[in-house]
């Protein structure tokens, strides 16, 4: 029996639970809900990758791998990153396989932050950025983006947020929740500021494969940026492998060695069957990725047009599988909108406010659902708006 003393660390006690949780609880008990609230692909991992994992189990390949992951997979990742995003990393010293991109983020932050160091995060953003910065002993400093700028980080806004304690910029493109994609010119402007203040960039590029109109540019591919970038990617989104929990880090050897030190003590290595599945996905799965992308692109176009048709302003995001329409015209807060929509029409969306204050007035809708589901969702949302 515990006494009155709290055993929970203060840093954890003061941490806010994710706002997404509330909507999960609301939606989970309901029947017949169409969910546009899901942050993962509706596709199942390709059969060839699943079969490779099964085969690895049949062969009894169930031991640990090297801390950084199977060398063969790191070599394949190295080739893939070079082919797709024109960045070059040594498989032996500069690539680490992690338990999802989430662990990669945690490793990157813990490896670079001393107490009090500041990390600039760009809102609206993934819910875990600020808590992870704080768990690593750092302080998150928020830069807000706006719909007028298509939720793209502006170099001037970044510069204003920088202090003498700023150590890194945490940047996600294509972005969850807005779908915003930074093009080469946007990134070059940001890179100027990053170099001027001698910062690191933690580049969360987990949605890199899902860019629909122009190819993804990695900030690490810009001149002089490779040495100051920790590049994070993985298999979850592009290869529809969320449940396997497999991501990776590409970083210059000094930074990679620091992260590997934490990884070897805290995690040992990523799951072995997942690594064999990923190896196959990289070798033979690009065709499947292209097919998925085609589908996502059509659905994106469909849902953007549908929102605009019903009077909810929605820009066309360049990547990921989210749209971020404005619901201001309804006079509701994004939380009210999401809650009432769920209760009245049984469509689950995520209020933009859970991704930061600048997300207020917007909702995140994932189009990782079949066309049939999207059509039905659009019909219901239309009903919801017209009934007001």
């Amino acid at each position, binding site marked *: 029996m515990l006494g009155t003393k709290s055993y929970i660390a203060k840093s954890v006690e003061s941490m806010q639970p994710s706002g997404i949780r509330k909507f*999960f609880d609301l939606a989970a008990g309901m029947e017949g809900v169409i969910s546009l609230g899901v942050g993962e692909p509706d596709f199942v991992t390709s059969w060839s990758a699943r079969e490779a994992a099964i085969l690895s189990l049949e062969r009894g390949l169930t031991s640990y791998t090297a801390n950084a992951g199977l060398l063969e997979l790191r070599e394949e990742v190295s080739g893939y990153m070079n082919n797709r995003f024109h960045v070059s990393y040594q498989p032996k010293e500069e690539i680490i396989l992690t338990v999802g991109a989430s662990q990669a983020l945690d490793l990157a932050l813990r490896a670079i932050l001393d107490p009090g160091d500041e990390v600039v995060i760009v809102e609206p953003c*993934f819910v875990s950025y600020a808590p992870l910065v704080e768990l690593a002993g750092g302080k998150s400093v928020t830069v807000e983006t706006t719909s007028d700028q298509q939720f793209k980080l502006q170099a001037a806004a970044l510069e204003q947020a920088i202090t003498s304690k700023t150590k890194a910029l945490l940047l996600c493109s294509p972005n969850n929740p807005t779908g915003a994609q930074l093009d080469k010119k946007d990134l070059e402007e940001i890179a100027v500021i990053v170099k001027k203040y001698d910062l690191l960039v933690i580049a969360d590029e987990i949605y890199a494969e899902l860019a629909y109109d122009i190819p993804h540019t990695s900030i690490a591919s810009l001149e002089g940026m490779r040495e100051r970038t920790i590049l994070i990617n993985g298999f979850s989104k592009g290869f529809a492998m969320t449940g396997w929990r497999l991501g990776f880090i590409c970083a210059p050897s000094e930074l990679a060695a620091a992260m590997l030190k934490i990884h070897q003590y805290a995690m040992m290595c990523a799951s072995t069957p997942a690594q064999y599945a990923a190896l196959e996905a990289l070798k033979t799965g690009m065709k499947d990725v292209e097919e998925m992308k085609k589908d996502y692109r059509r659905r994106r176009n469909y849902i953007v047009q549908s929102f605009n048709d019903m009077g909810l302003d929605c820009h066309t995001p360049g990547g990921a599988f989210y749209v971020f329409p404005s619901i201001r015209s309804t006079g509701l807060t994004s939380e009210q909108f999401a809650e009432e929509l769920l209760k009245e029409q049984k469509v689950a969306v995520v209020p933009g406010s859970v991704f930061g204050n600048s997300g207020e007035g917007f909702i995140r809708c994932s189009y990782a659902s079949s066309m049939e589901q999207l059509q039905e969702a659009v019909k219901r949302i239309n009903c919801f708006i017209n009934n007001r």
Partner: protein
Amino acid sequence: MRINNDEREILEILEKDARLTASDISKMIGKSEEAVQAMVKKLEEAKVLVHYTALVDWSKVDDDQRVTAMIDVKVTPKRGVGFHETAERIYRFKEVSSVYLMSGAYDLSVTVEGKSMNEIARFVSEKLSVLEEVVSTTTHFQLKKYKHDGRIFEEKQIDNRIVVSP
């Protein structure tokens, strides 16, 4: 026929789901509804878009005993017309649902549907084998359909994803 990217998109979209309306497709490819209708009409007229059908699993319907056979047919090609004339004489039978010219050990792959095995046996012996150019036939009856036109018949589409996730 040369087609543009939009037309290719329309073909790919309709091949997956022919029930999507011109209005849906117009949103998916970012073109006006009228433009989509015009492109569809053009593709239909050129017989690139040949027909719209539904995929039916008749094995689930009680008292439906229909059988399907795939028949490998060896043919002596004719001077001047090759295999075309024989293919034509075969595909005109309404019980024939497909005819393909094949590479390999035989020439024509013919799919025949009938109400019973007897009906198909009669078709092969009385209609197909008697054709002058037909050298031999090998008939394979289908026992069960697992997957057809990219669709798995028994697979249940269960969405295991959690309803709301970051």
